[in-house]
């Protein structure tokens, strides 16, 4: 929704002290919270509802004396918990990453990467793009370290894999499922909120499906991402944007890309589906006032459970028009799957996407004299879903898949191995031409 009118709750993750309302002084350096990022003692924490103020039990002197570089812990304290809980919104960021398994995230796992080793920081401006928020203070991607041709063997397979890199994002193969270790919310229906009587039910992961403050949820663990063309740009719905309510679903964030755009690559996304309020007349998204400002608060939804009052107050705080009529719409957000990179040997194999390769025994279809190459091993070695399932991952339905990527849905005529790639026909295509 929006932090406007709910500052005190939302800003408990702000790197500052006391952003209670719109009067916060953003030029006052003494309000910066240095400790939240630079604590190394692990004892620092903020009060969740305290507008960023530290928990009164924290020994600030001890924490100040312990300051050091940022870590997965300090970054994670906020970024693992966005949206009100662990892995709720960032599907691929959860406390699992404090001490991750190899299969969970190969960088942060045995190699012990800290966040800032990739998210290079200069002058407190942290590199990295997000598909969820528009702000970008510097780009960083796999290519920065691994280059655009990351498969650096001199073998033919590397050549093929490097060719793929022109069309496919690294994580398409290297993170075939997301939220591997911790279920993430994929659906959130605000319209159902308010029923204090309704008893939450636990799903198969043990997650609750209902909260009277927030509504109804669906959780998923190790789901397969949605694949979309992505050229680096996002389309976003911003507060005040007029929406086309005739659409059944509206994308609030959506990657921009196309099969015809050479810069676009097939990239994995989590889709966060929500049901949220919209102004029936003005057709823009509504800002509810949820979190009570104080004891006297008369409008907060989480106190009075009255949407109408919450919208009137929230929209006033946001300085936007509200007609007085609201309705609920279904919205989607695309969240890029950027982390939880699996080890190389667990990337998708050739046949998991290219079914036509399943029966091949050699490379003869394209290459001469390749009898000594065990094509089958090459083409089949990859993500072992049955093994993952045996370890408790919810992926048993993915075992044996050979159509992991829906080529037709992405604009191909079919498997590009047969029908040709984006800009070049492949030699073994039925309309073969070099």
């Amino acid at each position: 929704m929006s932090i406007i009118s709910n500052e005190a709750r939302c800003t408990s993750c702000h790197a500052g002290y006391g952003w209670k309302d719109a009067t916060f002084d953003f030029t006052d350096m003494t309000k910066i919270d240095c400790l939240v990022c630079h604590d190394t003692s692990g004892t620092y924490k903020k009060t969740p509802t305290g507008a960023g103020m530290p928990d009164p039990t924290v020994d600030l002197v001890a924490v100040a004396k312990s300051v050091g570089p940022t870590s997965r812990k300090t970054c994670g304290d906020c970024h693992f918990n966005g949206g009100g809980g662990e892995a709720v919104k960032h599907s691929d960021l959860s406390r699992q990453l404090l001490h991750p398994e190899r299969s969970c995230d190969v960088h942060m796992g045995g190699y012990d990467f800290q966040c800032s080793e990739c998210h290079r920081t200069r002058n407190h401006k942290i590199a990295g793009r997000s598909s969820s928020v528009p702000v970008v203070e510097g780009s960083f991607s796999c290519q920065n370290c691994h280059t655009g041709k990351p498969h650096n063997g001199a073998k033919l397979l590397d050549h093929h894999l490097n060719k793929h890199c022109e069309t496919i994002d690294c994580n398409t193969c290297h993170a075939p499922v997301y939220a591997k270790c911790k279920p993430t919310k994929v659906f959130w229906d605000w319209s159902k909120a308010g029923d204090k009587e309704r008893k939450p039910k636990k799903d198969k992961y043990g997650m609750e499906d209902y909260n009277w403050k927030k509504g109804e949820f669906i959780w998923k663990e190790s789901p397969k991402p949605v694949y979309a063309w992505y050229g680096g740009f996002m389309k976003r719905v911003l507060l005040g944007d007029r929406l086309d309510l005739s659409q059944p679903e509206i994308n609030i964030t959506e990657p921009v890309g196309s099969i015809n755009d050479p810069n676009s690559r097939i990239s994995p996304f989590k889709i966060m589906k929500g049901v949220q309020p919209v102004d029936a007349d003005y057709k823009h998204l509504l800002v509810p006032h949820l979190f009570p400002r104080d004891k006297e608060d008369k409008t907060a939804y989480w106190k009075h459970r009255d949407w109408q009052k919450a919208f009137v107050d929230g929209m006033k705080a946001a300085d936007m028009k509200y007609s007085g009529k609201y309705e609920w719409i279904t919205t989607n957000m695309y969240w890029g799957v950027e982390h939880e990179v699996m080890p190389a040997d667990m990337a998708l194999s050739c046949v998991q996407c290219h079914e036509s390769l399943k029966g091949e025994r050699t490379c003869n279809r394209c290459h001469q004299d390749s009898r000594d190459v065990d094509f089958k091993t090459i083409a089949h070695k990859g993500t072992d879903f049955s093994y993952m399932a045996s370890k408790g991952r919810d992926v048993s339905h993915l075992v044996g898949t050979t159509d992991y990527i829906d080529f037709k849905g992405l604009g191909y005529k079919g498997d590009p191995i047969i029908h040709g790639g984006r800009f070049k026909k492949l030699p073994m295509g039925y309309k073969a031409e070099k």
Partner: protein
Amino acid sequence: MTRTGPGVILTITAALAGILFSTPALAANPSPAETAAPEKVVWTAPDQEEAEKRAEEVVPFVEAVMDECRLCRQQRLRDVGLSVKDQSESYFLLNSPIIRKTEDHYGPVRFMHAKHAGVTKDCALCHHYRPLDETASETTRCSACHQEPFNKDHPERLGLKAAYHQQCMGCHQEMDKGPIDCAGCHRKNVPDHKDLIQLAANPEPFEVTSECLRCHKPAGEDMLKSAHWLWKGPSPYTLHHRKEVELGKATIATNNF
């Protein structure tokens, strides 16, 4: 050309991300992780451990090297049939005690040896000299020749730290690729603040910040302009809003949760 065997494939695949095989130990705990014991480190990368061990080693100093030109060197390597395929280690942690003895301001560098070899395709680019000793291996570690700086007997031999920096930065600059700033390769170590912090007991949070700012005022100034502080900033990758500098959660960005 295509005589790839299964073993080779495995090696390559391993090299892809610089990882050797080990039994995949998948996360076994899909339930809420609040109960997971955080201290338990389940998996460590074997090549990381090896790299750490290698980083600690100090190899015997090579007194004399064969002084030959780049071309001669390349020719020699070609003659003995060495190429980037023959590398034995794909990943190094540059964290030599030779350097650490005098320098603890930066953390170790993760050096992707295989990656660099793959990109340059020329061992002689970095392994510019070989030991004069014929029995020594053709290529050797940087730290075999480059150890302490300002060696009296070898006044022109760079110390290890300078050798790394000149080699890495020089090449990165020349190739216009790769980082040439400090933080591009290693994280900065933060000195122990135990004796630096001067705070009375039970300070207000603002007082803590003022104490930080006593020395880090520029950092505070930087922070005031950062997205983590303003929750808004430039949006160069948002379609139709690329020129805007005010977008963010604090303004009109929205979401559905």
